Every structure is written in structure tokens, then in C-alpha cells.
């Protein structure tokens, strides 16, 4: 009988040393300045784009920025900058 992999081992390992989870394993990094600007590193695609909602795919997760007057100021293959009046950030899945 094979032992199931303990999915909770890695967070415990990193948490034990006091290191943040995403420091080694690549994951999305979001910096939000007030409610006007969001810098996203680790994005993989845009799922929805309009003035009220921008949904970004980040591999295992989808991040939805909701507000008004939202637009993507600039983007590259793995990062982008969203500007506008952000009213909420939702993590889907």
C-alpha cells in the first residue's frame, strides 16, 4: 500500500523556517499600490478584460480584479500592470 503524499508537508517545511511559501516554488506575486495599481508577476494569460473586471490566469489560480475604469497599462509574457479603481481582488479556485 503506497503511502499518500502528504500535500501539507511542503508548507510546513517552509513555514517551519519562517520562509514564505512562494519563495522557491514559482507562484503569482501581486503588488497592490493603494487601490489604483496592481503589478502582477507570474501571470499566464487574460481570461476576461473589460473596464469593470479583469480576470488573470496564474497557472493554478485565477485572480479577478473588480472595480471601475480598469485597464492593463502594459504587459509581457509573465507580468502585467493593471490600473484603475480596484474595488476587490478575488482568488477563484
Amino acid at each position: 500500500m503506497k503511502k499518500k503524499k502528504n500535500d501539507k508537508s511542503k508548507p510546513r517545511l517552509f513555514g517551519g523556517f519562517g520562509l514564505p511559501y512562494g519563495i522557491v516554488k514559482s507562484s503569482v506575486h501581486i503588488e497592490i499600490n493603494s487601490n489604483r495599481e496592481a503589478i502582477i508577476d507570474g501571470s499566464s494569460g487574460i481570461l476576461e478584460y473589460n473596464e469593470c473586471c479583469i480576470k488573470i490566469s496564474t497557472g493554478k489560480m485565477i485572480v479577478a480584479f473588480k472595480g471601475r475604469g480598469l485597464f492593463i497599462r502594459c504587459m509581457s509574457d509573465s507580468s502585467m500592470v493593471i490600473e484603475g479603481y480596484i474595488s476587490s481582488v478575488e482568488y477563484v479556485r
Partner: protein
Amino acid sequence: MILRLLRWFSGYAKFTAKGKFPERLLNMTMKNGIQLWGMRSDSSSLTAYVAAREYKFLRPFAKRCELTLKCTKKGGLPFIISQYKIRSGLLVGAILYIAISIILSGYIWNININTSGSINEYELREELRSLGLYEGAKISDINIQDIEQQATIDMDNIAWISINITGTLVNIELSPRIDKKAPTDKTPSNIIASSDGVITGIGAGEGKPSVKIGEAVVKGQMLVSGILEYDVGGFKLKHSDAKIYAQTKKTLSVSVPLEETVLKKNDFNTYKKSLSLLWVSFPISIYGTPDGYISTQVKNENIELFGTQLPIKITTENYNIYENIKVKRTEKQARTLAEKQLSLLETFSLNNAKSYTKKYTQKISNGKLILTGTYTCTEDIAIQQEIKIDGSITEENINKSSEK
């Protein structure tokens, strides 16, 4: 700011993508390394900016996403250049202008001299030209300190000179040398007569007079002695100084030919203009230098632009042409001319005389009218003569002393 500038230099295009899922276009461009910016989205379309050279790569992506792509605006330097491609002369002119400005800014355009008036500006300019400072000279070749030093040495009448180069303009400030008054000569001397005459007056001064009023004296005769003898014996040498007035006779004469060939100014005048740029000069008028006897007046006119003197000047040479004309004079005409000439001669020759009376005599000889003036003058005939310790008195002393 820098990013905006770089995007402008490389050129950009604004496009609109219309369709169901414009997000797909964004993902495709992202995956293929095409950078977009300024994205705006509304219900059915997406507007964004892309680099001009990458716009053509959007079309296949738009086709795959079933979007209609339309370029709404083009901007940046490449589009401006292509717009003015047919007007290449503008660019050539602009480049030439910049090149000429850079080249010309390395040379002197103008030299302003602020002088009090006692120093001859023309002489100064010639001296500076010989030292390497002139309009058209290369600024990098000029050593200001050397020029200032050498100019002060070469020109005795300059006390100090300051040369300032501001851009292409040279400003020169200078101060004339003020000679100190020569100290009074205290050399022991006698006073002797500069010419024959009859003494009419003796002015008080140093020394012992050895003549009296009314006495006739000859040239070189001692009038005031600088050797003072004491009653108790011994003597003292003094510097004699006095004014001795005597009545003297002088003769001046002029001759005027009754027939001669003179140069007379023609009514016809001509001129020649030339344009100079620094050291290059070329003519701009059709007239050349006339032949024959001419007198020339040269006028230089600098061209100014918004108060700045440019290194461009127009030189106008006005020529007065003279021709040989035979002149015949009557005796009366010759006499009038002779009197004028004699009057001028009197001004220079008799300037030392306190007063004089004159008498003219005229004679005609060998086709010339000779006018002779005989003058009886009252003048100061005293001149200094140094008393040498070894007792020798020479002609050299008399001639030296006559310059008072």
C-alpha cells in the same frame, strides 16, 4: 518619460480589435513577445498601442482569434521622416546649417576695441593681426596672455590691455600710457642766441644776463651766463633759464608756375563692392578697379542679425578718378595762389614769433612767379647750452638745447 521618447523614436501604431474574444489576442501577443501598452477595452472592442515594426505580426493572430484589426493612428519619428522624404533638401539644409554653425563657431567673428581715443585703432588692429588676433582667426590657436604681453611691449602708448573672448566675439579693453612730466632739467647751462637779432626784451629768470636791450647779437652769442662769481671769490654753476626777445629778420619764398600739368578730379566716379566671410572675399559688383590715377575710399559694413554682428561684411571701395589737365595761369592768378601758399608757410615757420611785420616782393623767372616774403619778427631767441665740466662746448649741445 524615457520610455515614451524611445517609443516615439521607434514609431508606434494604435489599433482597434473588434470581435467576440479580444482577450485571446492579448494572450497570443503576450506569448509571442509582442509588447502592447495603453490598452482600453469596451463591450466589443479592444484598443491598444504596439510598436510600428510589430504591427504586421498582429494580423495572423487577429485572424486566428476571428477579430477585425484596424489601425487607427500612426505616430513617431519614422512616419515623420517618410512624410518629408521627398523634401530631402530640408534635411540636407538642416545638416549643413548645423555643420556650418559648428565650424564657424570656432573662429573669431568680430573684434570690438574700447579705446579712449588716444590710441590709434587702426595701428592696434594691425599689431594684433601680426600677433595672430584678427577676424577669421581660429579661437583655439589664440593665446590671450601672450598677445596681451607682446602688445604692451610693442606699443609704447599702451599701459595695459585686456582681451576677452566671449563665444566668437572679442572685446578689448585698454588704457593708454600717461607719460610723467619730465623733471626740470637742472644741468648747469648758459643761454645763447638761436639767430642774429637786436635785443628788445629780457625776461626774468635764472642766470646772469650778459647783453642789454638794444644790443645787436649774432647766432651762438652768449646771452645769459650760468657761471655766477661771488665777490669773496669762487663761483657757482647754475641752470640758466630766461626769455630773451629780439628783433630778427626772416625770409620765406614760394614759386608758382604759370603753366603746369595738374591732376584734376573727374566727375565720373565708380565703386566696387565685395562680400567677405571671415577670411574669404568675393566681388558682388560688376565694376572692377579703374585704371589711371585714382583715390580710394574704403567703407566696411558689418551685417547684424538681432543685434549680433555676423562674420559677414560688405566692403565698398569708392574710386575718384583723376586726369592730367594743363593749367595756364595769369600773373594775378599765380600771385593769389602764391600768397595762399606763403601764408600757410608763415603759419608753420613763424609760429614762435610773438609778432611780425611782412613785406612781399614778386618776380617772374623761367615761367614761374616767385613770391618772397621778408619778415621782421619779435621772438624769443634764447636756447640752452650745457656747461661741460671739462669746458668743451660743441655744436651738438646747441642743436640739442634748441628743442625746448
